[in-house]
Structures are given as structure tokens and as C-alpha cells.
């Protein structure tokens, strides 16, 4: 989702150091370097993606964020970005803690399980939802810990993680999410982007 990367880029100041956890083929890093002159580093599990990044001259480490975040020193990046991967970890809470240790701030995006189409799929059809942001079936989805924008919002409050900004994304439209509009935005956002710490 290109819009997501645009929103993330807009959240970042120029010339900062960013670690992109699960950087894929480096599309977000490309954008951040191009538009914000950001010093970007990536961590990526898929060998093929690692090579694509290397061919492009991006700095990327082949590795598993679930087990290898310890190698990054505390507060060594201005921002750590985690795009639509939190729900795929065995232990998202531990990963999130590590991200907050490594980065002065953390940007996390999640596919929103509270989106109305997801809800109606389950309510009216009695089936696990398959949508653009959740393209896999129940038996082959990498998503182990699906959550809603509201879930993550409450989780941060509970764990005393400072929420700086939350943005809801639906196709091309974005809107800021606050306590007051959380219920309605949780229903109409496909994606939630959290700026934490």
C-alpha cells in the first residue's frame, strides 16, 4: 500500500537515522532516502528481498526480527519502523519492547481487524475475512495475533507506552485518531499507523 509509506514518510523529519524492520524489497527505504535524506537500514527475513536491497545499494541485514533485534544497541536509531508485521510475531509484546529500546521513537502500522468489512465478513458470512490488507486464508496466514486499532491503542495505554499520534488510513484518505473518535475510526480504517515513544 503506497499510501501507507507516504504517511510514514510524512511522519519522519529529514536527515534522521531509521531502522526498517521487515524492510521487504526496500521500497520504503528508497522513498525515505529519496524524499527525506534519511540514513536507512533494514532487517529482512526473506533471502530474495535481502538480495534486491543489496543490488539497490541499500544496507540490509538478513535476519529474523523475532530473535535478532538484540544485536541493535539501545537508542541507536532515531526511528524504528515496523510495517504490517507486528501481528505476525510469536511474541509481539517482546518485539515491541525491543523496538522501543532500539529507537527513540517507533512507527508501527497494523492491518485493522476492526475494519467494517472484516467485521461483516465474520458476522454475516461466518467466515474469516479475506481482504486486500488481509489477503491470506485462515490456514496459511502469517498473522498469528490479529488486532484492531482499538486493541493496540488500549495496549499502549495499559503498558504506559506513549502514543504520539495515530493515523487511520482508508484507501487514499487519512485521518488522525484520538480517544474521542476511536470507535468510529476503528470501524472505518483499513490500516492504523502509530507513532510511539
Amino acid at each position, binding site marked *: 500500500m503506497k499510501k501507507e509509506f507516504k504517511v510514514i514518510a510524512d511522519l519522519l523529519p529529514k536527515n534522521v537515522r531509521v531502522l526498517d524492520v521487515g524492510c521487504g524489497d526496500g521500497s520504503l527505504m528508497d522513498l525515505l532516502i529519496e524524499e527525506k535524506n534519511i540514513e536507512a*537500514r533494514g532487517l529482512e527475513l526473506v533471502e530474495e528481498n*535481502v538480495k534486491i*536491497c*543489496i543490488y*539497490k545499494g541499500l544496507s540490509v*541485514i538478513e535476519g529474523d526480527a523475532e530473535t535478532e533485534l538484540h544485536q541493535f544497541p539501545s537508542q541507536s536509531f532515531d526511528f524504528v519502523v515496523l510495517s504490517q508485521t507486528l501481528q505476525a510475531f510469536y511474541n509481539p509484546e517482546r518485539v515491541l519492547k525491543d523496538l522501543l529500546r532500539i529507537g527513540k521513537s517507533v512507527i508501527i502500522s497494523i492491518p485493522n481487524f476492526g475494519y467494517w468489512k472484516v467485521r461483516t465478513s465474520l458476522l454475516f458470512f461466518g467466515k474469516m475475512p479475506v481482504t486486500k490488507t488481509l489477503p491470506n486464508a485462515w490456514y496459511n496466514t502469517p498473522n498469528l495475533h490479529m488486532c484492531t486499532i482499538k486493541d493496540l491503542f488500549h495496549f499502549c495505554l495499559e503498558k504506559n507506552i506513549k502514543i504520539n499520534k495515530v493515523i487511520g488510513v482508508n484507501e487514499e484518505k487519512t485521518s488522525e485518531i484520538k480517544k474521542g473518535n476511536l470507535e468510529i475510526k476503528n470501524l472505518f480504517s483499513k490500516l492504523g499507523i502509530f507513532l510511539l515513544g
Partner: protein
Amino acid sequence: MDDNLKNIKKLNISKTLLLDCKQTVKDFPLAYETYGELNKSKDNAILVFHALTGDQFVAEINPLTKKEGWWVTAVGPDKAIDTNKYFVICANVIGGCMGSWGPKEIDKKTNESYGLNFPVITIRDMVRAQETLLDYLGIEKLLCVTGGSMGGMQSLQFCATFPNRTFSAIPIACSTSHSAQNIALNELARQAIMADPVWDKGKYLKKNVQPKNGLAVARMVGHISYLSEQGMQEKFGRKLQEKADFEFSFNADFQVESYLRHQGYSFVERFDANSILYITRAMDYFDLSKQFKGGLVEAFSGQKTKFLIISFSSDWLYTTKENKDTVIALNASGADVSFAEIKTDKGHDSFLVNEPEFLKTLKGFIDSMHIKFKNEKRI
């Protein structure tokens, strides 16, 4: 072969070098070879470091052995390190036996080969000697340094000692210090040589002989460690060497025996036994964290060099874990580091054979670094 040695490129290093063992040397030869052309802006030079039994003849045909250079799979026209585009330099390490200052050379004081009178040298000594070659060739900053195994160690050492002399580095299948297992295997090689009566405390060259049996065994040890268990099983299994059944003798019944004997005894034609002692010692002594007392993070602090560390999944001599430890240290010191593990069953030898995924990664990184280096130079 020794007559041919006179025709190879040699730089006489006239400046005094203080070795790690505290001895000083000057006026000694460093044999080297180059491939391709240095361009006008001097942004295309790549220094390749060779491994234990390598030499300066990276590509094309080795003029001394008449065989292909040790890294023809990676270096040459249109290869991963494309000599149409890049200027590739490689020097024979000091301690070696292809024309550089080593135990085989004549000690001017005694007019005889050094033998064990040659000082015990280190990886840092090797790298310091090679840095003078850059001055001689007029290269202030290299595009890249690279090498596998001991060549990877030299790459790491070069960056730690001369942080401003290269734009990027690709240490391949190596570590920042030898494990107990690495040292043990090297000791096995050394003991094999020293147990050969011909070795004669290193003085064999006076009689114009080589401790061939010991040297061959040393090479066999090496060859076992360069292959993976799976690779060896697939290549040889229990296949017999040109026979239908066991001979009930100690001849080479199995193909794997025949392979080792061939590798061992062809090696003695081109290598000096004392050089194996000295070079394996240098590898065992190599310990970057010991050098930079505070540890590895200190060794790489303030690095501007862009690193790519490459490991091979079936390499049990320098495992992925050891390579990753280097990545972790580089990360901790804030260096710019990439890391890729190549999935292969070819073991430690993977960097020398035709391993397409490895070669593509090598090429992709070097080409992208060249673009970045040119941009940096323009600014």
C-alpha cells in the same frame, strides 16, 4: 618454477615496517598482480586479499602453475568483479611463497633461506605491507576490499587499521578471531609438516627438498574442512575408485581417499611447507577484539566503510553464527553493514566455486557501491 618467479611484478618496500612481533623490516619484496585498468578518477580499484594457499594470481591463467587463477569464478571480463570495469589488485601475503617476503626467501645476513629464522608475522603485518602497494599505485581510496576466509580476515583488519582507505568492504566466510576448532585444525596441519623428517626444523631448503608427505597431509586436512558433510557425501559417498570391490589393502580404494591424495600431492608442487606454518600461525593469532583492547566495537568505531558480510549456510569452518557476530559488532559500533547468508551445500569452499547466488550478490553490491563512490567523489 623459481626462474619464472623473477618475471612477476614485485614492489620493493623500502620503508621500515614494525611487525607485531616487534621486529622491524625494510627493503623486502611484495609480489603482486593487477587486472583491468585504473580509471582517471581512480574510483574503480578493488583490492582482493587471498586465503591461506592462494596467491596474487586471482584471474586468468596463473603464469607459474599454468592453471586458472584461484578466483576465476568471480574475477575477469564480464564476471561478478568485472575487469572491464574495475581495476583489481592482489598481492601475495608476506609469509607466502609466490615472490613476496617469506620463509623461502634468502636472508641477506646468512645468504640462505630464512626457514624458521623468518619472523612470526600477523594478519595486521600482511595488511600493512599491502597498504604500501596502494601508495605505490597512487590509489588514495579503494572502491572495495574483499576476500574469503583469511582474505576476509585481512579485509576486516584493513578496515580497522586503515579506516579511510576504502569505500566499501566485503569480508566473506570469515571471523574476527579463530575458534578453538579453527586453531586445532591448523595445528593438525602444522604437526603433519613438522612430523615429516624431511622438514628438519625448517631447514629442508638447504638440501633443496620439500617435506612433501607432511605438506600433503596438511593440505588434506584443509580440504576436508573446506567441504560440507552433505557436499562430501553427495560427491563421493562410499564410491570406489575405478574398482569393483575392496582391494583389501591400504591403497586408495574409496574415491574420497583418491581425491584427498590427489589434492595433497599436487599441492606440494606449488607451495612451501614453512609458509603453511607461518600463515596458519598468523590466522590463529588474529583477534581483532584483543588488538582493540576494549573489544570489537572499538575496532570498528567511527567506520565510514560500507560493509557486506557474506556467509555460507553449510560452512562449518567459519559458520554463519561467527559471521553474524561480526555483523553484530559492526552494528553495535554504528557502522553501515549488510549481511547475507548464501544457502548452499558447498561448504567453506563456496566462495571459490561457481555459486550463482553468491556471485550475483557480490556483483550487485560492488556495482551499487561504485555508483555511490562516484557520487561521493563528485561532491
